[in-house]
Structure formats: structure tokens, C-alpha cells
């Protein structure tokens, strides 16, 4: 199984690093944009650098959607995993076009309501995880299987 790990820098990147015990067992490539923390990936991981895309940046999301098509076509992952935030949207959308399985993990900051990215991909992804059990009542498709420590 090959993975594509998609995340914004900062807390979302820290969350993905928290899943290392899972993803390190598989072949993988990353998608993020360069910042003080994600740049540390350079030495040891295969990284597809994309446009800086933060919340509500529609233009950047469109550019990254076309980048997503190229990256997915080249990388051919079996599963696309995103811990958010905004980068999840173009990549999960593009994955649907290729019929690639997708997973979204909502930020632990979202105890009651999903993030905008979470809401946008909620109906698209194959597996949707939240990190608070309360969230499942409001979003029945979401699963609570624990936190990322």
C-alpha cells in the first residue's frame, strides 16, 4: 500500500507527525508547502511542494487542484490521508476523480463543530475521523477511534 500524506504546516503537520507509527510502515509521499517546520522533511521524505494555501484562499485552491491531478497521476497512491486543513480540499476532490481511497482526520481543536475543510470533504471521503467522541452525534459519518497524542 502506498500513501499520500497531505497537510498544512503548523498544528496540522504536527498531527500528521503524531501518526508516524502508522504511516512509517508504508511507502509514502508528502504534500505540503514550505514553512519552518515542514522544511525539515526535505532530508528524509519525498515531498511534493505545493502553493501556500491557507483558509478561504480559493485561487490557491484551484492552482493546487491542478497540481493535485499531476501529483496523483505520478505518485499513484492507494490511500490519501489528510489531517487538514485547506490543502485537504483540492487533494481529496482530485482523488475522487482517480477513484483513490481517501481519509480525513479532523483537528483536535474541533470539539463540537467541524472545520470548514472538514465540512467540505465530509461527504466525499471514505473515512472521516474526529478526535472528540461528542462530535459523532452531530456528524454520524464521523468515527471516533481515539486521539493523536
Amino acid at each position, binding site marked *: 500500500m502506498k500513501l499520500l500524506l497531505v497537510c498544512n504546516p503548523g498544528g496540522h503537520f504536527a498531527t500528521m507527525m503524531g501518526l508516524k507509527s502508522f504511516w512509517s510502515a508504508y511507502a509514502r509521499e508528502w504534500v505540503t508547502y514550505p*514553512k519552518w*517546520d515542514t522544511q525539515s522533511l526535505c532530508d528524509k521524505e519525498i515531498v511534493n511542494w505545493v502553493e501556500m494555501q491557507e483558509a478561504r484562499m480559493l485561487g490557491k485552491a484551484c492552482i493546487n487542484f491542478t497540481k493535485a491531478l499531476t501529483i496523483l497521476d505520478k505518485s499513484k497512491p492507494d490511500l490519501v490521508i489528510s489531517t487538514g486543513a485547506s490543502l485537504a480540499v483540492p487533494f481529496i476532490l482530485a482523488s475522487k476523480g482517480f477513484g483513490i481511497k481517501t481519509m480525513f482526520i479532523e483537528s483536535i*481543536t474541533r470539539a463540537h463543530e467541524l*472545520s470548514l475543510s472538514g465540512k467540505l470533504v465530509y461527504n466525499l471521503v471514505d473515512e472521516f475521523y474526529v478526535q472528540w467522541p461528542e462530535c459523532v452525534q452531530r456528524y454520524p459519518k464521523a468515527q471516533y477511534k481515539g486521539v493523536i*497524542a
Partner: protein
Amino acid sequence: MIIFTLGTIFFPFDRAANWLQILLQEEIIIEPVLFQHGATSVTRLNHPLLTNVASLTTDEMHAAVKQASLVVSHAGQGSTRMLAGMGAGFVLIPRLKRYGEHVDDHQLLFARAVERFGVHYCTELEQLIQYIKQPPSPLRKKLFDAPLLAEHLMTRYRVLNLQK
């Protein structure tokens, strides 16, 4: 030493920077401050006790936290989990939407949600002053004492692979 960190996201957090300025000017803070200001402008901020840095590497931040008597941080989940994990004494200042500090108020909701685990946060300068005068003690237990999602995924995908 006190660490004051606003994270490195691209939204400015001028309110917190202004509070820091007041705390130094009023001599409520009388020890050195390491200020990771990220995208927030610090051109007006100048004080002999203050060291401004846009961003620290993870290792630099860890080393600084180990020496700090108190960490004042924006309520980002990455920072919060790092501080809780390191056993630091810390207080959070949530970024708020109405001041253009983030896209929505999830930092405030997050701070409220983790308050039940013993995390301290403040939304007013007066509250922060109290925390400077009386720093909160480090958390005694893990912040999120729950099953690990990574373990669930490891089991789930091992099973799926075997079934192939």
C-alpha cells in the same frame, strides 16, 4: 525566562503583542522574554528584556521551554500538545475571529474544551496579569488520556492488507 509565542500562522495577533508591551512597560514582567511573534509585526515592540524572533525550530523551542518559568501561547493545538507533553507551566490566549486573528473561534472552543483537563486560558489582559503573578503549575497527567488513533489505523490497515 518567559516564552511568549503566537505560533507561526499568517494571521497577525496584535492584541497579544500589545498586551506583552504593556506587561513589560508596567513592569509586571521583570524577567527576560523570548517572543516568537510569527506573522505579527513587532516594529513598535522594544524593551531591554525582550528578544524577538519570527520563528524557532522545533528543537530551539523545546530547549527554550525547558528553561522557561512560564509559557504564554496562542491556543493552537500543536503548541498546546507540545507544552502539555513537556510538562511546562503554560497559559493559552485564544485567537479570536472578531479581531481578525483567525478564520473562526475554534481556538477559544479548543481552550474551553481542554480547560477540563487542567489547561489555563485567558481572554482578558487582567486575567493574564494574574497568571504572570502566579504561574499555573504544570499538568500532572497526559492532556488527552484516550485511545490512540494511530493504533486503530495500524490494526485496521494490517487487517485490510491481509484480506487482499
